[in-house]
């Protein structure tokens, strides 16, 4: 049952009941700075509301792996390794299409089961599963630092690792996040910005506010992952989706550039092992 008889000390600590006890969500008790500095209309890290943090991508970071990638979106760092397709283990039933298993390790926390399922279903939509029946494709994600937009960075990393591994996919997925505070959109929010918007306060929140994450397939113009929490009007949500589509196209430009380099000089791009 959910009502664990905790001592008063424990009740105040963990946010979600499904998280393991002992892991606390480190929240600052100091007053949170406003999202937009009124003096120069910039965010706390100097960006404008529509500016995205710098992105770094690299593939072939693990020599032994079939496909691997490393993506940095601002301070969020995600490493992805793809293993397979390999034979289904005996305990799993026959499947006429491939099966994907996604494992996400978040350093210093645990990603909620629902977010892992969202990423898994996104990957199932992206990979051409019909091409390998009775096979298992494993995607291992390690979020080394969650500086905000971790689901989006995970999608980018997984997509790139699939490109690196040569597994047939419909399109390269990219992801991005948007924060809405009732007045304006803030693209690619950092963790401190996400923490500073208090969505639990119902009196402050009548104008709305929310966090939207979108996974996008740029060439097909389709959405492969979508989740929104908070409270927003339907029209505001529609324009948030348009903003996110634009950001995703910008992110895709970076990933596409890297993929082209990868295709051109496949052997040269993989880091060589020093002998």
């Amino acid at each position, binding site marked *: 049952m959910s009502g664990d008889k905790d001592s008063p000390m424990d009740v105040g600590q963990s946010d979600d009941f499904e998280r393991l006890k002992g892991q606390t969500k480190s929240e600052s008790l100091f007053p949170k700075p406003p999202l937009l500095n009124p003096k120069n209309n910039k965010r706390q890290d100097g960006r404008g509301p529509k500016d995205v943090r710098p992105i770094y991508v690299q593939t072939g970071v693990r020599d032994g792996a079939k496909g691997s990638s490393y993506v940095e979106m601002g301070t969020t760092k995600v490493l992805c390794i793809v293993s397979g397709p390999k034979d289904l283990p005996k305990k799993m039933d026959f499947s006429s299409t491939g099966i994907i298993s996604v494992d996400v390790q978040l350093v210093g926390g645990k990603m909620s089961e629902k977010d892992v*399922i*969202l990423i898994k279903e996104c990957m199932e939509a992206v990979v051409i599963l019909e091409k390998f029946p009775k096979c298992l494709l494993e995607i291992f994600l390690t979020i080394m630092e969650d500086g905000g937009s971790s689901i989006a960075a995970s999608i980018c990393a997984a997509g790139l690792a699939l490109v690196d591994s040569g597994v047939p996919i419909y399109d390269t997925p990219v992801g991005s996040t948007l924060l809405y505070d009732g007045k304006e959109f803030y693209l690619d929010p950092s963790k401190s910005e996400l923490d500073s918007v208090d969505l639990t306060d119902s009196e402050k929140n009548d104008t*709305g506010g929310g966090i939207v994450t979108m996974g996008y397939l740029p060439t*097909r113009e*389709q959405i492969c992952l979508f*989740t929104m*929490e*908070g409270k927003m009007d*339907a029209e505001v949500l529609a324009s948030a989706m348009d903003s996110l589509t634009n950001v995703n196209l910008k992110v895709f430009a970076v990933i596409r550039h890297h993929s082209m380099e990868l295709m051109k000089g496949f052997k040269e791009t993989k880091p060589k092992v020093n002998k």
Partner: protein
Amino acid sequence: MAEVLLSEEEKYYLVLGVAQDIRVDGRSRLDYRSGDVEVNTVTNSHGSVRIRLAETDVIVAAKVDLGVPKTVTPNQGTINFLVDCSPTASPDFEGRGGDQLAETICRILSSTYAKSSSINLKSLCIVPKEFCYIVDVDILVLQCGGNLLDVIAMGVKACLGTCEIPRASGTRYDLGKPVPVFSRDEFQFDYLDVSKAPVIVTLPRVGRYFVVDATLEEESCSKGKLAIGVAPDGNITSVDKLGKACYQVRSIAASVQMAAKVGVDVNKVLSDRIDKLKKSKLHSTKVWQAKQDDEMEVS
């Protein structure tokens, strides 16, 4: 979700029917099935509801406990959710089979009720920083006939709306520390204000169209669905794309608009029902009291 096996011909018939706005049971794409809500099904909880929508049957029970507010939100109470997909609902739910589904539903409910100003959590606070109510909502799925998430969300709203929160009539000081005082009269309680609580409208995609309140057969014909939380004022409280399908931006935008309209109607019907249930509860307790007085006079 519990799956049914359909032949290709049956699927074809279903999908073509949906395209012509006539579903297998005769409904249009935007019609809900009929159902009902009962209260007081679990007598040892503070609030309980059994909600049925055709074959989908769910019991939602809420227990109110005294606890300490979280340090970061010192003047708010908390609402915790636990979903249990019972094996009686579907053989797929045996052992750990239902866990993934339960986790997803739980997470959607938790983030909706914590983060979208659906319930004023401040009303659950008794003494800031010291005492608050912790409402533990347990959801038991008895039978799964499709559209589970919607039914659970409606049940949660009804349960929280008819949940009897004991009234703290004040605080007294015990060795300098405040202690809440509860009224001795067990018929003195408050109801939570659920006028802003959302319902969830799940829209599976069958063929090229979205349908509302899908049956198990319709769900097995769809590759993916959108679960959209709609507040009574038409605002959207959550959107989750579940399943393996991909959508165009305008598809999602259009379905969100549709869900907003449908959600407002569903909220209205549910709110009216909750009000009727609250009135009938009050009436039955008054009758019980009057009867007791009569008996005492006779003896």
